[in-house]
């Protein structure tokens, strides 16, 4: 990261951390009088529809009524956004900075940050501390978005045609489209830290939130609007399932979060960037002792409540002696098994909570997928909290070999598969990873891992897979998708 940007980023981070400490939080959410109305945020302001979905928390208590817009409204919003000129670049950067502070510390739509975070925690089932970390991460990345986005600009390209050289000309970095649609994810608020880079680049953005957790994008987009983007440059368009396609169709470019099916569906569509399962992995090669890296593995599996695409799904342990992988798995299960079972709003909670029925369904699916894998965690991953919700406790399994089918099963809680690995198995089992942490110093292996195109990010040494740095690509730079370079040659006129 460039030093100036690094400094800017750290400055934003500390400013946001400071402002976060000002208010002393109330004990819990205020009692519910009436259901909160979460309106769509259209080009002329908040838009309340007749069709609404009730957003419930993990205990089944209704928390908000979310307005669901029809396809025609998405179409009209895209049109309005397309006709709104982008703000000048310096104003975009300034507005993103203001939005970061407002999002993390201000009162947005009548709601303070503490109430917001408690609501998100209750609704998503994410531990409160995870939600607070996410607030800080979103805000700091927002403040740094302008600089981060520019990191993707090819060295040969200038940011504006005005800067193109006379005579021989220049490459100019230009948008591939004006309106960018996002089918957002609801697993973790942090997923909303990526798309604001599109605003930094001058795109107008419309976000279809997850119906599971629409509060974070609602607050973020309200803050962005107040901070200077206005109602016609960034919009929130909740829809029901069958209108979701309309949001994508109305835009010029889109990004969609989802499973393998979503990835397959959009594989042939150059206008859509699918964000599929992360299947992040750790390789513990035999040139170091796994005991030295157990902390990093535990954190990589369980940080964020294990709900992120950057959480570790599989660990490959070099079988230097028979039983190495099994010994590692036992130690990992013991550490993860010590994590406390608590409701999400508890300050000490670290594990994710789901509605009890959902948790049971996930556990059943896990059991089916596990098959003959050897389980090192307690038999039942579900710890019922008795209020309609249940904690998903870590699941730790050892599989037979590095090609076992279970290793691809990514589930939204700390669920990890361990496989024995030997150098003969090579790189093949490690393919298809959003993040691969390779604990090894074998240079030839590192080179092959870097050359493997389906490994998106390669972390070396004792680096947790969840580490995300602004200015570094997440799954490639988003801007690689949003922008392209074109030649601009200016010939001075003779008169």
């Amino acid at each position, binding site marked *: 990261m460039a030093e100036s940007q690094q400094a800017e980023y750290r400055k934003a981070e500390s400013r946001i951390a400071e402002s976060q400490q000002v208010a002393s939080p109330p004990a819990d959410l205020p009692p519910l009088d009436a259901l909160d109305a979460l309106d769509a945020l259209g080009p002329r302001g908040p838009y309340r529809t007749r069709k609404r979905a009730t957003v419930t928390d993990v205990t089944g208590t209704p928390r908000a009524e979310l307005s669901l817009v*029809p396809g025609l409204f998405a179409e009209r919003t895209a049109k309005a956004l397309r006709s709104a000129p982008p703000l000048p670049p310096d104003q975009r950067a300034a507005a993103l900075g203001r939005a970061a502070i407002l999002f993390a510390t201000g009162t947005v739509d009548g709601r303070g940050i503490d109430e917001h975070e408690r609501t998100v925690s209750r609704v998503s089932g994410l531990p409160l501390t995870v939600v607070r970390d996410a607030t800080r991460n979103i805000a700091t990345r927002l403040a740094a978005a302008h600089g981060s986005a520019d990191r993707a600009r090819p060295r040969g390209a200038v940011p504006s045609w005005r800067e193109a050289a006379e005579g021989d000309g220049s490459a100019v970095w230009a948008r591939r489209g004006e309106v960018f649609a996002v089918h957002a994810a609801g697993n973790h608020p942090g997923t909303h830290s990526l798309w604001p880079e599109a605003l930094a680049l001058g795109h107008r953005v419309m976000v279809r939130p997850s119906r599971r957790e629409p509060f974070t994008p609602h607050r973020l987009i309200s803050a962005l609007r107040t901070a200077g983007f206005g109602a016609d440059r960034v919009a929130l368009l909740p829809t029901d399932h069958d209108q979701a396609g309309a949001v994508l169709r109305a835009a010029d470019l889109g990004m969609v979060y989802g499973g393998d099916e979503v990835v397959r569906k959009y594989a042939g569509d150059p206008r859509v960037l699918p964000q599929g399962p992360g299947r992040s992995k750790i390789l513990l090669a035999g040139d170091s002792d796994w005991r030295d890296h157990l902390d990093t593995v535990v954190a990589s599996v369980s940080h964020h409540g294990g709900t992120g695409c950057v959480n570790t799904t599989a660990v490959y342990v070099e079988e230097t002696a028979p039983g190495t992988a099994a010994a590692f798995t036992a130690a990992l299960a013991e550490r993860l098994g010590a994590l406390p079972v608590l409701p999400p709003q508890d300050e000490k909670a670290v594990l994710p909570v789901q509605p009890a029925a959902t948790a049971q369904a996930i556990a059943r699916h896990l059991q089916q997928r596990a098959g003959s894998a050897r389980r090192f965690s307690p038999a039942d991953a579900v710890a019922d909290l008795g209020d309609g919700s249940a904690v998903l406790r870590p699941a730790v399994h050892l599989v037979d070999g590095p090609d076992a089918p279970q290793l691809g099963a990514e589930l939204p809680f700390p669920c990890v598969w361990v496989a024995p690995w030997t150098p003969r198995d090579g790189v093949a089992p490690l393919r298809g990873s959003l993040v691969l942490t390779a604990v090894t110093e074998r240079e030839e292996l590192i080179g092959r891992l870097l050359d493997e195109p389906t490994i998106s990010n390669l972390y070396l040494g004792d680096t947790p897979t969840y580490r995300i740095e602004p200015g570094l690509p997440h799954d490639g730079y988003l801007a690689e998708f949003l922008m392209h370079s074109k030649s601009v040659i200016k010939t001075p006129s003779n008169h």
Partner: protein
Amino acid sequence: MTLNGTEILNPPPGVRPDPDQFVRAAMQWHFSPETGSPYWLHRAGSLGFDPRTDVRTHADLALFPNVAGELRDVPAQDLIPRGYGSRPDVVGVYESGGTTGAPKRVVLLRDWLDRMLAWSNEQLDAHGFPRGLNWLGTVPSGPHIVGEYFRRSAATHGTHGFTVDLDPRWVKRLIAEGRGKEAGAYAEHIVDQAAEVLRSQDIGVLTITPPLLERLAARDELVELVNKKVRAIRWGGTQLDPDTRDLYRDEIFPDTVFSGNYGSTMILGFAGERPGLGPDDPCVFDTLSPFVTFEVVDPEADGTDGTGGAYGINEPVPYGSRGRVVAHHVSASFLLPNNLERDTAIRVPALGEGPGDAVADIAPVTEFENETVIEGVY
């Protein structure tokens, strides 16, 4: 006014027969060997009751099984009541959309068409559709009854009817096969043709389906043309959700009369939007009762065990609740009671004393998602 049996079944315009007398007259007509259709006369043998003596009231229509599925295979001529003589005035044979399985066939006779049309034209007047305008219809023709009603409405309420053809079965098939892009291209092809008519002709009434209207509304030039020329829009054929309807009425076509109908081949016509609804009222549809009546019943009823008898599909939901639509058609020309439609609706009290329900906020039958776990964290 006292009417005899045939008069009760064919009352002059504006005269509403007593619904129970009407049903009894219809049973006499459809199940007497001299007047009934070959289909019903044959089917009567396996009903397990005698409609002429056992069906005394409108509510007794619940005794009939749902025979709609049999109309896939019945020879169309067997559906014509013998009472129409040897040279019945047949307008045409029409088919259902064919969404679920092979299409079902019905026969449209002239007297019913005229009755439906007279009622429909009165409804259009009540909505404020000016008479004598040119109409443009982007509705299917061929085997689809809606095309015939469009043509006849344009000719009787308006002056000239311009048409753009479309094949809804092909669209459904494309969508079912995951060829959404091709379906979209086909829809744009239809809008392109409608645009040519709108540009060159003096069109005052537009009849269109909601999906095509949405595509038309995405083109600024066409919105402008419609706002300049078209005085009234009549939509139908698929559902229109209340929020989209608001957008059309408030923002996109604010000065255009906007009125819907809810049609079904199996009722040989349609229900019309109730005139005079307020801006916040749901879109309510009324039928030409007692010839066509709806009931809104328990959505759990599947109605597939058509073995006869009162088998529970007619348990109504409370007013204001959503249920499945059951339609009855009872006229001299045709009898089809207890047809379970694919749609759900909010049950609303009918105008006057009924029988039957009005329906609002039509929506397709929803299939509930099961608890399948999709792998991944999103």
